[in-house]
């Protein structure tokens, strides 16, 4: 019979491999300085989001100043050059739900986080919002669908895609998420917080500050935010991409060793218990 002590020791031993990797993950990051664009102030803090092994998302604050009496919107997104392949689910024979087809969405951003100081409808009419690419309707008007269906189908499928992205926190529109405040010198200060979930892909994203007045809206300032990997996470990711065969063999060897060593240790434990 196994003693509780030997059982605990075996479990501890099995954890050692992952604990070593976890310990190696703590690598110092280069500190990122807030970035100020030329012209009007648009502060993105931090301007670089760094994913390490213990990264679980990051809150990014966008702040600055806009003219008095204006409303503001902040949009963080990428250019959306690629295509997203989707499966369409529908009813078959009126009873069964299954994949009934495929569709490609072209020119949709991977990330679309927007915050506004008031309701979208208060910022401007549909033409203004479309011109400044604010809101899901504006995103849809910039996207293509292949094969192209009817306008109703396109809208329905696009909004289903939005639901999918919202569930993964990669799309969000926060009406009222931009906070406006008059400072002592009479400037209209704004700030908005955005949560970057851990599954935001590595890359560079545009940060746009849009301001709105009675006569319409305008792109007031822009900046960039970068998501990258560092430390052990970056090393593993690059090894997987660039040296696939070596990486695969290494993964198999570690798995084999872990399996056999654990088997051996459990075997010793069993014999020790008799």
């Amino acid at each position, binding site marked *: 019979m196994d003693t509780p002590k030997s059982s605990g020791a075996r479990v501890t031993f099995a954890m050692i491999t992952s604990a070593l990797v976890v310990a190696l993950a703590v690598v110092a990051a280069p500190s990122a300085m807030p970035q100020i664009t030329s012209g009007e102030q648009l502060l993105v803090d931090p301007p670089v989001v760094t994913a390490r092994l213990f990264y*679980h998302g990051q809150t990014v604050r966008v702040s600055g100043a806009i003219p008095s009496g204006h409303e503001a919107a902040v949009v963080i997104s990428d250019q959306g050059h690629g295509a997203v392949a989707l499966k369409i689910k529908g009813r078959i024979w009126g009873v069964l739900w*299954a994949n009934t087809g495929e569709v490609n969405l072209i020119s949709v951003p991977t990330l679309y986080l927007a915050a506004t100081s008031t309701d979208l409808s208060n910022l401007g009419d549909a033409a203004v919002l479309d011109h400044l690419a604010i809101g899901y309707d504006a995103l849809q008007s910039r996207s293509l669908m292949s094969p192209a269906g009817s306008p109703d189908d396109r809208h329905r499928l696009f909004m289903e895609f939005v639901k999918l992205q919202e569930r*993964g926190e990669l799309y969000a529109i926060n009406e009222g998420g931009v906070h406006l405040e008059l400072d002592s010198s009479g400037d209209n200060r704004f700030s908005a917080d955005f949560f970057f979930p851990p599954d935001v892909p590595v890359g560079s994203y545009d940060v746009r500050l849009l301001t709105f007045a009675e006569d319409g809206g305008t792109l007031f300032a822009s900046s960039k935010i970068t998501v990258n990997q560092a430390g052990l996470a970056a090393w593993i990711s690059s090894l997987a991409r660039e040296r696939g065969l070596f990486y695969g063999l290494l993964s*198999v060897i570690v798995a084999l060793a872990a399996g056999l060593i654990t088997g051996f240790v459990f075997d010793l434990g069993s014999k020790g218990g008799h």
Partner: protein
Amino acid sequence: MRADAGGSQLDLSIYLPVAENAVSIPLLLGLGGLVGFLSGMFGVGGGFLMTPLLIMIGIPPTVACASDSNQIVAASASGTYAHAKAGMVDFKMGTLMLIGGIAGGTLGVYVIKILRAMGQADLLIHATYVLMLGGVGSYMFFESLGDLRGTRSSRLSKERDARPSIYARLVGHLPWKVHFSRSNVTISVLMPLFLGVLVGVLAAIMGVGGGFIMVPIMVYLLRMPMHVVVGTSLFQILFTCINVTVLQATVNHTVDFVLALILLTGSVVGAQIGARVSERLKGDQLKILLAIIVLVVCVQMLLGFLVAPDILVGFKGGG
């Protein structure tokens, strides 16, 4: 929109560099332990259970499949070691079925390509899955239940089995008979080769490792003892998953080593415990437990057909 990353509180999640997502470490250890336990106990790889669970917690489907294969290497190595030490692995039978399985897997890849070109392949695949799981699970369940209860129908079934069936007569006429001492059966080498091909084709079509198809085939068609079946199945799964892991890492770059490492930390321990529990149970008890798991998966898949999804699109590759 969530504006708080929760950085100040203790967070036991870890960032997966290939999956590009963060997942709770205790959750992964628990999943690994559970699937490893089932693997060690029943001789199944557990991919049919683990891959959907990983997708559910936000791992991209391609990364979930590839990394799961990597962790199954560890769990099946651990399980094979334990069963081999107990003399419960038929290496000769396993090697023949493995050769057939590799050929069948390659054939299955082309079959699935043809099915996809014909359209409605997904429905066909899922329907096959449900029918296979339902049929195999129900048969195993009722047969084992009868044996456990020692019912009259079971005795009659045994008596009927004592008479050579058409299947037994056909198998008996095949050439190149070999005695497999560990399984204590004498059959033609063509049988494990052919059944290996069949499992390989089905596994490739259904996108799973094939352990839960392999086990009933070895029990009912090769007449191997259940305890030897578990170890022998794990032995084959080990090599199949080594092949898949290396191929996925080389061709698709979708193996997430960090994910696999945490899963396998749980699964190797689970596999050892499962193997020991397996040794203490009767063959019929093992069969009925596996039948229940297979039937639960079958019902879950059936519900997926009948219940309307909350979102009517999904990323391609995500089922």
